[in-house]
């Protein structure tokens, strides 16, 4: 694996994280669901890397920093959206009425303090 290979793979990972962040921002459910596939594929590609050369070192570092920033952005946006949704659902006593299996599944309590801090 060449340096360019690492750079490309990391770029695609960052791209998929950016796509996920954009989907969270929209908020666009279709893009959010589609982002999962892109993220899984990009992660899989990075996971298959066997060697990392020193070529384009600075570019790679920049790309990795950008990818980490994109990941953090996804976390912040995702948690904010999820916590808001939980708070609103619980406010109307509707939390936990629907889960992945279709049966009642309690949602996690809103992390109020974290949520406030992030906002």
């Amino acid at each position, binding site marked *: 694996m060449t340096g360019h290979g690492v750079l490309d793979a990391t770029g695609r990972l960052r791209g998929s994280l950016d796509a*996920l962040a954009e989907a969270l921002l929209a908020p666009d459910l279709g893009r959010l669901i589609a982002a*999962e596939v892109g993220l899984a594929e990009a992660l899989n590609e990075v996971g298959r890397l066997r060697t*990392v050369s020193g070529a384009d070192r600075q570019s790679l570092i920049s790309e*990795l*920093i950008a990818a980490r*920033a994109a990941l953090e952005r996804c976390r912040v*946006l*995702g948690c904010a959206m999820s916590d808001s949704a939980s708070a609103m659902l619980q406010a109307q006593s509707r939390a936990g009425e629907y889960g992945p299996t279709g049966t009642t599944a309690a949602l996690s309590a809103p992390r109020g303090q974290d949520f406030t801090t992030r906002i």
Partner: protein
Amino acid sequence: MSGLLTSLSMAARAMDAQRAGLAVTGDNIANLNTDGYVRRTIQYEEARPAGVDVAGIRAQRDSLLERRVRQEWPYEAREGAIADTLSVVEASLGDAGASLDAHLASFFDSCSALAQDPSSSVARDSVVLQGRLLSNSFNDLSARLADSRRGADASVRSGIDQINTLAAKVSSINQAINRANGADTNALKDQQGLALDELSKLVDITVLARADGGVDVALGNGRAIVMGANNYELTAVSQPVTGLAAVTIGGADITSEIKNGKLAGWIAVRDTNIPAYQQQLDTIAFTVAQQVNATHQGGRDLLGGTGNNFFAPIATATGAAAAMAVDAAIVADPQRIAAGGTIAPGDNTVARQLASLRDARVVGGTATFAESWGQLVYRVGSDSQTAIAQRDSRREVAEQVGRLRDQVEGVSLDEEAAKMLRFQRAYEANARYFTTVDNVLATLLHLVGGA
């Protein structure tokens, strides 16, 4: 470094956009039960060089449906006002067999009893008593109808005040919208819609949209009550003699121009229904007094006198029910009741003729007193039931159109909740990779010496 700053800036802007989106959904849920609230949707636009911005928040208004709803409400409100007022009139007439019909029967029964024993002072006292009870019954019924009419008039005056208050509110909202200068006016338009809804229930209005988002409102034959920031007040002007209020604007009497809405219903009951009932009641009272007096005048009392009135004479039918009373001379001395055609002891000719009036078709030449009273009761009941049926029918149409409007403008809690849950699940599906991604990136950084 500039790339990272751009990224951070984009993230911050996008974060704002997302927060705005959630706030809109939160607003929709929080205002689920707020009257007049119209569902908001957020509109995004692509930001340059990248990211997303909020283009605006739009209220899901459908002006066509709003106009349709406001066309239906005045009809429903008019019939509702008529039904509500007439139900009170109907109740005031009393139950069958326990109201005027019972007093008529008792009076003629007392005449029959007098015919059995024309010289009996007890029977004479009983005729006077029943005559007074019958008169009182007419007086009470007339007073109740007059009260109902005054009540309808009070409603008309109150309706005029409510219309003026709402018109002032709409003009003040117009002013606020005009001064918004591009700021969000959706909340103002919610208030505007609510005020127009209330107004259309009171009176049929014509609403014309202004370019700045405000509205002009007219009623009757195009009488403007709101034009931009100005409102023109309706006035209740008491009419001579009756004292009832005429609806005027700028000095012009527009009472007859008001066709629908609660105001029209109250006016119809006050000026059409109740006067007709009063007229019929007066006709019965006038005919009773006239027929009884005519018969009574032909007889002779125990003192030998003749030509006496039993009831105090009434000149015209108008106001007869209110004026009806047993003649003062009869009340003072029941011996003045003429039971016979002569002074011969036991002559009961006139008493029998008075008793036979019970079955005489003398009201309008076609109906007995009891039948005529029954017709009045039936008429009130029929008018009331017709108004109820019309109101229910109109209400169904108004509700159907209202539901259609709500589908567009209303907030669906299920829809909002389902949307929230779907977003949560989709995010969680992505988030399960985050730890791995974090580890991979940390490892790579470590390998290239960036950490």
